Every structure is written in C-alpha cells, then in structure tokens.
C-alpha cells in the first residue's frame, strides 16, 4: 500500500506509548496488573448498562436464611441485628 511506511510509523508510536503505560501499570500493580478480576461482561452491552445486580434480597438462596432469622427468639434476633449493623 502507498501509505505503508506512514502506517508503520503510527504503529511504532502507538506501541511506544503502550509500553510506557504498561510499565506504569506494572510499577503500580506488579504482577497483578492486566484485566484480571473485572466483570467485563457488562461493558457496552446495549440495554443493560444502567442496571446492576442489586437484587440479592430476593434470591432463592436467602429464603431459608430469612425463614430461620424470622423464627428466632426476639433477643437473638436483636443480637444478630446489632452484630450486623
């Protein structure tokens, strides 16, 4: 292509900035850098961006816990409340 040399110069400049940025991340995070630990699945997915998974309260796993808590004697329930807050 006629613009090959100029494109290559752009790539080199991009790689140079990329190396400097990676070095800074490595200095800050050491080996823990990179994208590990992020939940990427939400990013840029149309229709789901301004909602988040807040609704753990109605999850089925909480039903037995809630049942047990509600049937505790009041003093124990109060103790649990105090410990949780």
């Amino acid at each position, binding site marked *: 292509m006629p613009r090959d040399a100029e*494109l290559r110069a752009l790539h080199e400049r991009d790689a140079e900035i990329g190396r400097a*940025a990676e070095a800074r991340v490595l200095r800050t995070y050491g080996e823990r850098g990179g994208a590990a630990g992020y939940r990427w699945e939400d990013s840029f997915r149309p229709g789901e*961006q301004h909602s*988040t998974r807040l609704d753990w309260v109605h999850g089925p796993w909480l039903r037995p816990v809630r049942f047990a808590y509600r049937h505790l004697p009041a003093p124990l329930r109060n103790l649990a409340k105090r410990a949780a807050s």
Partner: protein
Amino acid sequence: MNRQIVLATPAGTVEELRRTARSVLASTVRPTHWIVAGSEVGHERVTRARNLRRSAIVVARDDLPIDDGAIVVFMDSGTALDPDAIATIAAALQPGSPHRGAYGDSTHRAEGRLAAPVEVRRPQWSPERLRSHCYVGDLVAVEGRVASAAGGAAMLARLHPHDRALRLAEAAGSLARIPEILSHRHDTDTAPPASVGAVDAHCARTGIDAECTADPAVAAVRVARRIRQRPTISAIMPTRGTVGQVRGREVVLGAHAIASLAAADDAPDLRIVAVFDHDTPRGARDAIRAAAGRRLVEVEWKQPFNFAEKVNLGVLESDGELLLLLNDDTEMVSPDALDVLAGILEDPGVAAAGPMLLYEDGLIQSAGHLLNPIPYDLYRHCDPAHVGAQNLLRVQREVSGVIAAFAMVRRAAFLEAGGLCPALPLNYNDVDFCLKLQHLGHRVVWTPHARVHHFESRTRNPALQPFEMELLGARWRDRLDDDPYFNPRLERYVSTWKPDRFGQDAMSEALGPTAPIASK
C-alpha cells in the same frame, strides 16, 4: 501544629455562624484564625461567645496577616466542617506537595428528617467543568500565598462560591480533589451553584474569547468559545456500504450520515474521506458519492476488516487540521455540532471533543466514557431530559474518553498518539486512544451542547473479545481503577454517577432533580 490555619467565611445569620462555630470547636485540628468577612454587631453574639473566646481561635472581621505557607479554608457560613477535615487538608497540602489548593466531598441535609445525609462526591480537577458550574463545592482550601495572589482572604470570602473557586483556581493553577467528606451543608440542594458573571470575568482575566450564557433550566453556564480562524476539517468515515433502516426507511447508512453533515450550514470546507472495504456494493458506493459530491476522497481498504486501521489510513489520506472521526451509522442532530466541537478545540489543552450521542429513539447512547472500572457509556439508556447527578448532563466537562463514532480530534494530537491501536480492530480502540491522549497531557471534553444520533453497531458485531480486555487492562489498569472524572466512593459497575448504597434516595441522587423518581 505550628502552621497557621485560617478559616474564612462570609457573614451569615447568627444561626448559621453558630453551626459553623460548633463544628470548628469540635474539629480535631482547630484553625488558628477565623475570618468572618464583613461581620456585623449581631454576629458578635456568636464570635464573642465564651466557648470561642476560650478556644484560642483568633476571630476577625476582616483581613489578618496571613503567612505564605498558611492554609486558608474558604467555605460558606452555615457549613459545618467535618471533625477531621482540617487534618486531612493539612496532610494534602503539606509543604513540598505538588498541590497548592484542594477541595473535597461533602454531605447535604436529606429531605426527610430521619433520612441519612446525601453525599456529594466530586471528580478530580476538571477546569472545563469548573467554568460550567462550581462543582468543587463551597469548601476550597489553598495555601496562604494563593489566597493573597487571588485578592486576599476577606475579599474572597465575600464572593459567590463560583467566583471564588475560579479566582483561586487561576492563582493555584489547579486544585487537588480529596476523596473524603470535608464538610456538611445544612441545605438540601445538592446541585452546584453557577454564576454567569463570574465565568464572564474569569474568561476576561484568562484571555478566553467566549460567549457565556446561562442554562435556562438549571444552574449552569455554557461557555461557547469563538472560533478565531476557521480550521479545515476532514471527516474520516470507514464504511462497507451497509444498508439499514432509519425511521422505517431503508438507506445506505454512510450516505445518510454524509447527507446530515452536508445539511449543516457550518461545514462549507468539510472534506469527507470514505474508507471503503473492497467488497462494498457498487450501489452503496454510488449513494455515498452522490451524497458527498465533490467533497469526497475515496480510499480502498483491501485487507481484513480492522476499524482502527481503516481510520488510521483515512487520516493519512486527509489534510484537515481537525479530524472528525465519523461512523457511517450516525446522523447529526444539532446543525451547529461541528462549530461547537471546533470551538472546544480552541482550548490548546484539549485534543478531542465529543457530543452527546443519542439512540434513534432519543435515549442517551453516551454522555462520554466512564471507567467504572470497566468502560461504560455514561447514562446510557437514560432520558436526555435528565440533568444527571449534580447537573452532570447539562455541563461541558472533561471525560476519560468519548466514542469515536463522532469525535473531533486535533490532527497533530492524533499523530502524536500514534492513531488508533491496530491491535484493537473492533472494540475499545477509542477508549485506548483517549487514554493515550491523556497520557500525553491532553484533555478530552464532552459537551451536551451538540447532539448526534448513533444507530450503534448496525454495521458490526458488538461482542467483546478476551484479547481486547487484556490489552486495555495491561495498559490502563490504573486509570480503570480510578477514573479521574469519577469518584472511587461511588458505586462500581453502573453507568450512572450513583452513591455506593441501595435505595430510592441513591437512585434519585444518581438521576438528578428532574428525574421522575425524584419528582413524585
């Protein structure tokens, strides 16, 4: 602590001064001096009260000799200092620190008597936003020499908070954000105040040639810079001639995008560089040629699809001083969008500017990028009538990135940053590009004063690839973890500016005062 610490407030009502006095006396590090600027006899009921007289705090009505190395904390009367605020500020403004001034987060009284206070979290230094409204709040702390250079503590304390913050920022160069609660305000209005007069005077002092007008709906100022010399603009549009439906009508998207650009009366010198895939249908090419006319420069892309490389090649084939990165699935809504974006680039520190992007149905597609910690489009799928938390959606401001679907970039900055990264052929090349610009010391600005439709991903598959995430994380993990134009105390993994707690209050705070949930 031997350092002189001066609190400067304007005179307020006795009740307001009493509230401030109580917080000053409860502070873990007390100020050495308190200037109650323009205090009258009535206020002496507070300032001469026994507990203040016995506290060793020197209370004055007017200017005191202030050391250059002192800390001067400005705030409104009636605002209460957090007990640890002065200690936190003193730690941030230690001698030898790069910062000469700072501001922090605050709380406001909630509407309900029993409700928890509303937190106002603030972004890092954002000069364009400060011109739009006083996002830093009423509490600003600076070194004594900065206060003296800006006009003196007593004079500054009497000013409107926006005026004061602008003058202090001019004298300090920039202000540091402390992500801690520093003050507690008694009012319930969390929206930042704004003063057109203050911004006008600021522009005159700093040589910004702009027209400043007040937003008719909220407290915000629009600063429209005048374009001194009309630059040449090249629009770079990669396309493969996709045909799609726009409002029920089948069109060649690229031709439709160009027609909306050409309809704008501010684009007489616009050149359009269309980078065609080799398999672009002849009919689509003809439609694009017909829409662009003599402005069109045709470039052939014969390799496998790579959006970033197509843009890079288009830029090399163009000659405009400003580049308009243009997707073929866009449509300009504001007829003056190009002028608005070019006006923003009159600021020599700004390298890229982007408009508010809307879906075809009118909902927001992007109000700038937000790294939280993965990249989001701020306020996506929200109604553009929302003003956002603290009027965020009504003000021109710095962002971590803008979508390259419709973004104006300085040509020199594009080349300096090495263009779009060819290793990101589909997604995140714009996120990476904007972060490269900021790495090089440039700023990226988003504006609500230009609007563009983006019929997103009609022309490509939006699915993310693992290598794209890896590359972005490897280069920019530090920026992803702490977006400077966000706040680390806000909720993660959402595309709104939302407090890190559940409930209706948090949601109404995220969506701002005009959100339906708040107007019930």
